[in-house]
């Protein structure tokens, strides 16, 4: 019994050692980016996590989310980086796993085009309406009673300063 178990443990040690060597070799070849110290730094993980949102919390970027779940997702990013995945591949993986809500901003596909297109369109419509309004005011229709002739353009027709100057004049 004792001998058997010793043999077995020796065997398994050999297997583990072989696996470790294989892993080390794989790492050296598969992840040349992290060749220096073997694994990505926290900053490299956060650089990816920053672009993703916590799949379960409300509006919390993954790099700063304090929950345990997010710590695990950051660990997942680290694993993928070690495995040599690119930033885009990791992002795609998260989208595939948890849906598009993990992206900090919506894609430009399908209905989501509206997110990007509507604000500029709204602004342009507003700008056009404003331009039209200004044009109308500049060329009033004949029926509109002409406003009293406005003062000639001056460098400064500011009430307060006029009052101030008047006061100054009085005191002199």
């Amino acid at each position: 019994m004792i001998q058997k178990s010793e043999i077995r443990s020796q065997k398994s040690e050999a297997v583990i050692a072989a696996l470790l060597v294989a892993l080390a070799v794989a790492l050296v070849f598969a992840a040349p980016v992290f060749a220096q110290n073997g694994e990505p730094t926290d900053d490299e993980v956060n650089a990816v996590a920053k672009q993703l949102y916590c799949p379960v919390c409300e509006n919390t970027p993954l790099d700063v989310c304090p929950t345990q779940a997010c710590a695990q997702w950051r660990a997942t990013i680290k694993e993928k980086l070690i495995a040599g995945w690119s930033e885009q591949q990791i992002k795609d993986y998260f989208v595939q796993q948890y849906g598009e809500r993990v992206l900090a901003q919506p894609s430009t596909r399908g209905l989501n085009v509206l997110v990007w297109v509507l604000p500029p369109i709204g602004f342009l419509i507003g700008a056009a309406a404003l331009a039209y309004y200004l044009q109308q005011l500049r060329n009033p229709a004949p029926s509109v009673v002409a406003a009293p002739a406005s003062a000639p353009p001056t460098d400064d027709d500011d009430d307060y300063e006029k009052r101030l100057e008047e006061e100054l004049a009085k005191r002199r």
Partner: protein
Amino acid sequence: MTLTLGLTSLFLAFACALYASVAALIAGPRKLNAWIDSARNAAILTWPLLTLASLAVIIMLVQGQYQVEYVSDVSSLAMPWYLKVTALWGGQAGSLLFWSWLMSAFASAAMLRRWDRDRSLMPYVIAVSMITLAFFILLCLFVENPFRRLWLSQATGEVNPALFQPANSTLFTPQDGRGGNPLLRHPGMIIHPPMLYLGFVGFVVPYAFAVAALITGRTDDEWIRTTRRWTLVGWLFLSLGLILGGRWAYDVLGWGGYWGWDPVENAALLPWLTGTAFLHSVMIQEKRGMLKKWNMVLIILTYALVIFGTFLTRSGVLSSVHAFAQSAIGPLFFGFIGITFTISMSLLFWRWDSLASETQMDSLLSREAAFLLNNLLFLGIAFATLWGTIYPLISELVTGQKITVGPPYYNRVNGPLLAILVLLMGIAPLIAWRKASFKSLGKLMWIPAALTIPTLILFYFLGAAHPVALGAYAITAFVGYTTLSEFARGMVARMRLGENPLIALINLSARNRRRYGGYTIHLGVVVMAFGVIGSNLFQTETQATLAQGETLSIGGFTLRFDSVALFPTNDNREVTRATVTVFDSSGRLIAELHPRRDFFLDSGQPMTIPGVRSTFGEDFYVILVDWQPIGSTGATFKVYVNPLINLVWTGGLIFILGTLVATWPDADEEKRYAAAPASTLATAGAD
């Protein structure tokens, strides 16, 4: 006893608000003065009644009457008394009551003003403010009642909240409350909601006057002049609420920033944006008799966004369609916004012709045109922000897919608009009313422009070599100089009188509070903009796991991890507190910081409190991300260096100071206003 008193008062307040709106609406067109007075008295009475109801909730919170659902939801035995008091606005039911109380305070105060000048508006001001109040009390009474108690059913053994005792049940009193959200236990969070709500309700008063003006056909600018100070007070509190909210996020949320374009933040920003557009645009109406319709549109929009904002900040319903469908609050709010918006806009179209401009635009290069551009930009930002806030809900409804619209969207869409807005803020005050010339404008602008160049060179050598940053700094510096030059022009004029510069500045601002208060606000924005640019574009961060005694370096600083301690507190927290030492580039010890993580046992939520070493130049901001529980040997830290972030808070202070100057009552102005007949006021501008 307390509960009965509070509930009865709340119910009576509801009755008063309803009676006041109905009586005012019936008596108004018939000029039945006795009935209008009666409606006014009922409106004033809502305030003491809601005060009693709010006090009742506060007393139950302080006494720890945990058989009351709201009390057990938002407070716990371990909380200090002041947190129990402020738990009045720590949950949804209490917030709605608190909102109603503030609303009734503003409405009552408006009722108590002198009405000799605009008595015809009064019945409709009563009706509008009381209908708004009645809606919120209705929510308080029938949907989210803070007086509901917990009942244990004898038949099923379940505990359910109900206002009155259900059959076969006994009162259930939990040993302790759940204590509410720990993130809200921060001084910033204690003051922030009241400020925001004061801002929200402040805008209801000008809206009520606007609708009253539409109904009565008194479409001159009387309503604007009457409510100018109310609008400014509302705006002051809203601005204060936004700034405090940012500070709270920076101190408590532990992500190194202060503004994340979160739906809840956007909810408070939206009425601020349209309100700010309104504050600028009314000046055109006062000065030139133009844009009457547009000002109506702006205040109607602001009111709708105020109600929308109140709804968003407390309900969290925008997170998903399910959350929206589960609560009756959502449909009620949207129904109310829809109805009030439709009625207001119909009134506006009904009065469309009487709101024609009295004068015409003389030139595209005029203060009027600049203000219109300002309005376009504010509305553009508001639209993009509203769209980004509600789009996730639309996406989920239409495609079933949840999405996030985060800061990259807002930065990209709003960033350029904000930059143009800041630039305009510098140029517009230099442009004369009616018609300006490029020559005169050039005369006023060349000195600020010339000063901007050496400033930029200085920034370049201080390390801001980023092209976007240099562009943003160029705009901001130029605007800062033009604003200062406006102060200088006025001061020089006064100094010719023999006043010393300080007295000249004080007299100048005191004599024309609105104008120089406004410029001070612009200066505040400039200072904040420097801070925002610096802390956004030049923020650096790093994260590392350190063993005891190990160090990490960032931006010339070195952080050494000394120790970490875990200990419980007597208010049910488990605190993990690290001690780190910070050295500067020459190896000199500059600070010992204690980033910590508090775990609240009653609510099961963590709270990250950064260790911050703050100087004028930058903040060194450390967060404890993780630690090894056994042996306490290693810990993970995230460190941010936030340059110029203190300018955000300094600018905020200047901003508030300027608003106070502009809002402060001006005895001279009151006298002039009271003496002048209403018709001449339209031309004698106050600017």
